[in-house]
């Protein structure tokens, strides 16, 4: 009896192996396990057998069906995997065709430097203030302790515009007028930076432009000292250029600060590089901003922003920043 089913299995195995696709395998499944299959037919006859025989045949039938199912399932898996292989093969795609299709735009290098500096000072607890680029004579000079006719006005090659009284309106020569505007608009304590665009009557060359960018910091609080100024510049230097950089202050002159200084930075062992100007806010400037210099003290420091961009990327010509050649823009 056993042999009969063994040969059935043997025969089925050959048929399953010969199946070429899932469809014929499905037909074969019906034939081997369906209503008219050998095993189903045999099951129907079980009722007429002796208990002993019934148990024996039942066992053989179950075993045979399990084997058939396993063989069919294995073959099915095999066939669908082949099918999937074929589909995948037919969908082959060269992804390098799409490479570099969409590119990101680029922030201008000046903006990158500008935002880096903003972020750095925000980390130190500063806000960012702005003011107009076309300024009045008062905010650009008068309030900053440059009386009319003061020789220090000659230090700035000022571009004036035709607006209002002659020489009353100008393209701001520095970002310092924003100091006055901040004092006018805000109550101290003030911890703020003022990045912006400034103008001078200069012929463009590798180191000069009639328009360029500055950033300055203004702190006004009770008991602010020159030591605070020196320490803040040192902290900024370490944060922007690196921990191993150092800074120094040298006496200088600006009408709106006193004591005034130039500040230099250097890499240990390197040469001192003059970076900007700074000082304690002059009492007259505090007064012009509506503050009592006996109550409030402060410092300010400022420097050129474009130069930092040039240094960072080793660009040797300031004009390149404003020429907007795509081959330049796309590098940063």
């Amino acid at each position: 009896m056993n042999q009969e089913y063994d040969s059935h299995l043997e025969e089925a195995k050959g048929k399953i192996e010969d199946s070429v696709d899932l469809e014929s395998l499905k037909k074969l499944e019906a034939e081997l396990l369906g209503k008219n299959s050998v095993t189903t037919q045999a099951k129907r006859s079980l009722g007429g057998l002796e208990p002993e025989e019934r148990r024996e045949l039942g066992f053989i039938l179950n075993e045979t069906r399990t084997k058939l199912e396993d063989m069919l399932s294995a073959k099915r898996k095999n066939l669908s995997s082949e099918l999937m292989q074929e589909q995948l093969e037919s969908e082959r795609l060269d992804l390098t065709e799409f490479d570099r299709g969409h590119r990101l735009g680029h922030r201008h290098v000046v903006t990158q430097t500008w935002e880096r500096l903003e972020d750095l000072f925000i980390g130190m607890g500063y806000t960012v203030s702005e003011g107009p680029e076309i300024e009045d004579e008062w905010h650009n000079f008068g309030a900053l302790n440059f009386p009319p006719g003061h020789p220090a006005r000659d230090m700035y090659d000022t571009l004036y515009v035709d607006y209002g009284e002659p020489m009353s309106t100008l393209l701001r020569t520095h970002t310092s007028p924003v100091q006055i505007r901040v004092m006018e608009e805000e109550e101290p304590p003030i911890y703020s930076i003022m990045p912006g665009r400034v103008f001078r009557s200069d012929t463009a060359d590798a180191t000069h432009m009639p328009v360029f960018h500055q950033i300055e910091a203004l702190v006004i609080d009770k008991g602010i000292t020159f030591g605070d100024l020196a320490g803040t510049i040192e902290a900024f230097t370490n944060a922007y250029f690196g921990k191993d950089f150092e800074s120094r202050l040298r006496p200088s002159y600006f009408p709106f600060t006193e004591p005034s200084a130039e500040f230099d930075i250097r890499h240990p062992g390197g040469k001192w590089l003059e970076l900007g100007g700074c000082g304690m806010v002059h009492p007259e400037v505090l007064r012009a901003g509506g503050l009592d210099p006996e109550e409030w003290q402060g410092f300010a420091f400022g420097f050129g922003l474009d130069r930092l961009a040039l240094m960072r990327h080793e660009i040797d010509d300031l004009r390149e920043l404003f020429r907007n050649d795509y081959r330049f823009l796309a590098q940063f």
Partner: protein
Amino acid sequence: MKVLLSWLREFAPIQGETSLIGEQLSELGLAVESITHIGEHLDGVVVAKVLDLRPHPDADRIQIVEVDSGDGEPLQICCGAFNMSPGDFVPLATIGTVMPNGMEISRRKLRGEWSNGMLCSGAEIEIGDDDDGILILGSDSKQGTPLAESLGIESDVLYDLEVNPNRPDAMSVIGVARDLAAYQKIPFKIPEPKVSEKGKNVSEILKAEIVSPDLCGRFVARVIEGVSIADSPQWLQNRITSLGMRPVNNVVDVSNYVMLEMGQPSHTFDLASVSNSEFKVRWASDGEEIVTLDGVSRKLTTEDGVVADGSNVPIGIAGVMGGNSTEISEETSTVALEMAWWEPSAIAKTSRRLGLRSEASARFERGTDPEIIETAMRRFCELLEPEVSLLPGLVDEQGDMPAREKIKVRVSRVNSILGTDLDKKEILEILDPIGFEAKASKQDIEVTVPSFRPDTSLEIDVIEEIARIFGYENIVKTVPKSKTFGSLTAKQNDRRLIRSTLMGLGLDEVMPVPFLAPGELENAGLETDGIKVANPLVAEESVMRSSLRPGLLKTLAYNESHRLVGLKLFEIGHVYSHPQQPQPLPDEREHLVSLLAGDRVKEIVEIWSALADALAFRDYELIADSQAGFHATRTSRIEVQGRTVGFLGEIDPSVLASYEVSERVSCLEIDVDELLSIPHGHSHYKPFSRYPSSDIDLAFEVDESISSSEVRKCLEEKAGELLADINLFDVFRGAPVSEGRRSLAFKLRLQADDRTLTDTEVAEVHKDCIEAVEKKFSAKLRS
């Protein structure tokens, strides 16, 4: 200001390495621009006598010079200068000499002719700044003598210092020496000049009157007899040459020497030509004329000061230039020497107006030391002696002189400003060496400002002096803790968001200059009355932009001319215009302009919608409109909550032609200030429906003149509250759609918050929408 170390040492025993002294000068606020070692490069340079000159056979710009360098043999040199004649003595850099610029002189051929050395200009061997021609040496020179020996040049160090406007005292050798002495804590002293006086008292032969006391604070005159014009001694010539002045004759050179040394300019008159031997110091009358030393006739105004003679005729422009009628000449024997203190602003105005700025006017403008005059006059005579004799006495007239300030300085204030812990005694010790007389009272110090520091008038000025001499480097560095929260404003954050979004969309940020040439606004189709620069250097920078478009168009044109096309650019920047209503400053607004080169109008609309999305502006409208400089039929106005914030579309082809841009260009222009002033940003969470939705697709055939946004709006109204989403998913032109029309296909998703919509409800909306659109726009539903 240039100073020689040897000269400084006449006033203080300055110690230290050359470079260390340089550092100390910088720390004192006298920034060292350069240090030159004088005499260092003169090894190998000898005096040579010019024997013969002849043209170079093959070169026009070179001549052949034969010189005797001491051995009596003619030596051939090729030389590019032509200012010497046979018999002149000139410096010769012999073979092997290393020049200051590092070049080593060798024997070489120039266009076929041998050159056995190099003849030098003053600048080439760092004796003065003269590089016009070969330095011609005195006729008593001897060929073969080393040049240094011949010129009496001893090795020395020259510091070139940058002197700030608040340091008039440092425009003199003694001022710099005083500072250095204070730094090094060594004695400083101005030696008393040794002069003998004889003859009549000056007051018997000379009179002076200050007619305008607001012009002149002090006018001092003395008389020197027995003056004969000659060359100055070589050592004196060398010194003033080192400091950048050209030797002229003994009287002029001594005048310059005293000015450089003590900061006090002087003027000399031929007394015989001064009418009545009298000086009147006054403002000029309008239109008054004078012929100055340079032979130029100059018209004066009431803002110019003059020195006039007894007949009230101007014989000099105060503090700026003398007149030629009283100029010292070979015949002069009696000289009136004048030194004065002039009102600084008067000198500044006159020297600027006449374009006559000199070493003297520069010092008067900053304010000279009125109390150095007596010493300076005696020094003048000391340097001219022994040929001359000084008459005793001086004419000394006083005008309005600013009072020497007495300033109260609070010790507590000093320390509060500087962050130091100085006591009274330390402060007095700092101030004394720089001439500030300080007296201590209870809490304060009373400081008398020295006459050579007119810049000092406030307590803070004295505090700066204390800081300077105490040393900035000695002030302990501290960092104040900010009492504000560091952050960007909402607008600054939005600006960054705009930039990031545009970058993500592939746009590059550019930064053209904000200046325009006349006509550039007009060429961009814009109004031409931009804000004008009153004093532009060039016409290209004479108009301030009222739009970012011209700058960006120029950028496209520039790149196109370098074969860089298809660019996508943007700029965020200020634009300026005349305001509608009077206001203190011009209108200044922040704009964004983005230009896309190529046929990219669809992309420009997508860029706007991406920006609106990024900034969370949910409701905006694009309304077909026209705008100056834009394409007449491809432009939309952008309206947000009923306010116009900008335009988008294509640039007018005629504008592109005038900017020489050959591609089509799409443009988005936004008034950033206006846009960001409209409330925006992410709002509260709105719950969405949990019930199933139903979609309706509707395609309408409509005229080209009807915008899709109008149709969309109509559908939105009709679908009302049930509309969850609406999308234009297809636009189709061509058969079977008739000419001049196109098909717009919308997908509407309907959904209710509280129930599943019934088929009837959906059908009703479907019907309403079709009816409304067909009726309103003469549209036809496509099936």
